[in-house]
């Protein structure tokens, strides 16, 4: 008698491996064992395809149903689903598309998919309350050390050589034909966020993007500011900081340990 472990490993191989083997521990009855396994293969792939489609509706719309299914099936076969929570599945789909030769004619597709994954992620995270401005002002009024800031967990940063925010927006309506979008309009630096329950993307200039990216990576403000000024000499840090604090992009600050 095979152990449960052995049964489950062989079942897994029969679902995901090609060519499909049919385990010999299945009672055929009036149907073949292969037919019965095929029902499970169809069910597993069907569930995971529909989970991917739920996360990547714009990607789906851009490539069409048939291509999406084709790509999804390859992805499902090659990518381990890590959790019993199906919403965790599909994180690597953008990278998969980047390396998928059949998708090469749509160079912006992986970045659109990446945008959709970030939106999916922030759909399920807590939205923190805006930062306490009075406390920040008090701290700034003193002789303070350098400050670090935390990005709201409901915010993500994403840059792409393509106008993926416009592509995403143009594909939100079921009926309307997407308008013509200039793919060579320059880098799109995006702050992707959920605010008051709604998903939105905000375009940032080079300095703002560099500043937030550095802060998010743990840099202190002075260093982040240098990075921002390096890409945008006229960057107005004070007004940007105030704006992003008010918008709740930055939700916590901490003082650096002072040297000496």
């Amino acid at each position, binding site marked *: *008698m*095979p*152990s*449960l*472990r052995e*049964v*489950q*490993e062989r*079942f*897994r191989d029969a*679902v995901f491996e090609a060519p499909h083997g049919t385990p*010999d*521990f*299945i*009672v055929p*009855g*009036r*149907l073949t*064992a292969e*037919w*019965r*396994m095929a*029902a*499970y293969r169809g*069910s*597993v792939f069907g*569930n*995971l395809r*529909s*989970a991917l489609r739920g996360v990547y509706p714009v990607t789906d719309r851009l490539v069409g149903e048939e291509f999406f299914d084709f790509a999804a099936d390859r992805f499902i076969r090659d990518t*381990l*689903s*890590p*959790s*019993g*929570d*199906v*919403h965790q*599945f599909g994180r690597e789909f953008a990278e998969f598309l980047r390396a998928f030769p059949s998708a090469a004619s749509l160079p912006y597709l992986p970045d659109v998919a990446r945008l959709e994954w970030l939106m999916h992620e*922030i*759909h*399920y*995270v*807590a*939205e923190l309350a805006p930062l306490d401005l009075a406390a920040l002002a008090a701290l700034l009024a003193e002789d303070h050390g350098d400050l670090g800031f935390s990005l709201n*967990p*409901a915010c993500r940063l994403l840059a792409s050589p393509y106008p993926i925010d416009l592509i995403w927006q143009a594909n939100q309506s079921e009926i309307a034909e997407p308008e013509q979008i200039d793919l060579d309009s320059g880098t799109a630096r995006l702050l992707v966020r*959920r605010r008051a*329950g709604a998903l939105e993307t905000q375009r940032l200039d080079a300095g703002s993007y560099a500043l937030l990216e550095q802060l998010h990576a743990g840099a202190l403000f002075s260093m982040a500011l240098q990075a921002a000024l390096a890409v945008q000499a006229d960057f107005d840090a004070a007004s940007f900081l105030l704006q992003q604090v008010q918008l709740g992009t930055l939700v916590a600050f901490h003082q650096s340990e002072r040297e000496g």
Partner: protein
Amino acid sequence: MSADDLSTIPVRVGIGLRAPHIREFLDTLPDVGWVEVHSENYFGDGGQPLALLEQVRQHYPVSLHGVGLSLGSSDELNTEHLRRLKRLVDHITPGFVSDHISWSSVGGRYFNDLLPIPYTEESLNLVCRHVEQTQDYLGRRILAENASSYLQFSHSTIPEWEFVEQVANRTGCGILLDINNVYVSASNHGFDASAYLRAIPKEMVQEFHLAGYTDTGSLLLDTHGAPVFDAVWVLYGEALARFGAIPTLIEWDTDIPELAVLLDEAGKAAHMMEAERALAA
């Protein structure tokens, strides 16, 4: 209804509440006894899904129904999954917490599907251990649901109904008896669905599920994508006669129709439940 009442599932008909309906549901607050949601859809730290569930919970008793615990897996239970489930349970105070007598992962790879287990002593011991671990961790009783299946294992030694009964008997968990699943498996494997019901001890069953299947011509697939079929209504009538009126849920998960269609199905079930109550009185 007081806030306390909302932490108990009433002996009424509820619906499986899914994302496409939740706003309309909150706007209209339809007359259903309770709702059931898939626990994993609310595993995030926050966000809109959880905010909406909190609102639902202010008006209705909620049952948390899991599809991802993988009670029948030869892997150890996923501690992160348990942690998130407990956090949700503590937050929502559901009337029931349930999952399936099935498996969905091996070696850390998830199928995100409900797969059949061979009914052996080894499986029984394992499922019981996982149910006990879950109950200990959550600090409450759970309900275990009979899953549907499209195949049987040649080395199974225990009939499914006996396996289900044994899980409840050994762990003290309740049984969530899915009437559609009994019908689907009975049809796929050629056993007697009525005999299945008769083999389950009356006091163990805490909840019924009703849903629609898809007939491929060779197999019935448990798709939850259609109205409850007549034969399943008949079996539900038998279940009511045997087990009495107990909380009953209408589930619909693929090709989800208008909310009104689900409410109509719930109305049919409620009508049958009332008829059973009148007979029993």
